[in-house]
């Protein structure tokens, strides 16, 4: 079950054109590695840059398959993998599918935090407090 929580938005003026959250944990069996992320409600998947995927042991040889994704300007086929957990601030989701690809000019270092993670929560973006609240959804409550 997803663990609700909150995370700070990078308030740096350099990052003000996007929702940038720092130090997102990607967990595999045995450990976690950390990257920065753009919050993107328009992205179906969480997309991890190849450089970070390499730290997790993900490469073309152990991918679970590929997924065809519509991006601006056409289609791309991305490698599909699975992480044990994604932690964003104090929120956490277990067993999350990810795609591995590059983000494009200017965004190579960061991952995209898409709906595969976000839709586990009721998401509130508080621009006044520079934070994102990730609250429990009724659909996730035990009956």
């Amino acid at each position, binding site marked *: 079950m997803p663990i609700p929580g909150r995370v700070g938005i990078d308030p*740096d003026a*350099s*990052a003000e*054109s*996007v929702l*940038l959250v*720092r*130090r997102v*944990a990607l967990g*595999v069996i*045995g*450990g*976690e*590695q*950390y*990257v*920065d992320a*753009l919050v*993107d409600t*328009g*992205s179906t998947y969480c997309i991890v840059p190849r*450089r*970070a995927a*390499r*730290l*997790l*042991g*993900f490469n073309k040889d152990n991918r679970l398959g590929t997924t065809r994704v519509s*991006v*601006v300007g056409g289609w791309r086929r991305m490698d599909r993998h699975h992480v044990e957990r994604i932690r964003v601030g104090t929120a956490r989701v277990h067993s999350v599918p990810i795609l591995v690809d590059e983000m494009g*000019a*200017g*965004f*190579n*270092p*960061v991952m*995209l935090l898409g709906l595969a993670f976000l839709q586990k929560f009721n998401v509130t973006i508080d621009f006044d407090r520079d934070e994102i609240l990730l609250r429990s959804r009724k659909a996730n409550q035990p009956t």
Partner: protein
Amino acid sequence: MHGTLEHLRNSNPGKWLLILLDGPDAEEGTVLFAHDDPETIDAELEKWAYPRSVEAGPLYLTYALAEGEKLPAFAL
């Protein structure tokens, strides 16, 4: 170089940083590598590929924006 994550980024503007965190969720860490060339970073990451990356401890791959550098507008 060891310090807070903010200090490490501020000390290395315009560079990719591979930081060994002091522990899970630690606010401090040690810079293992800093470089402004992504291809050089790629080569360096080969040395830290799994499982060494997991054995080493929590690694944080980040980019320190340079003074005045803006992330581009984003649409996907």
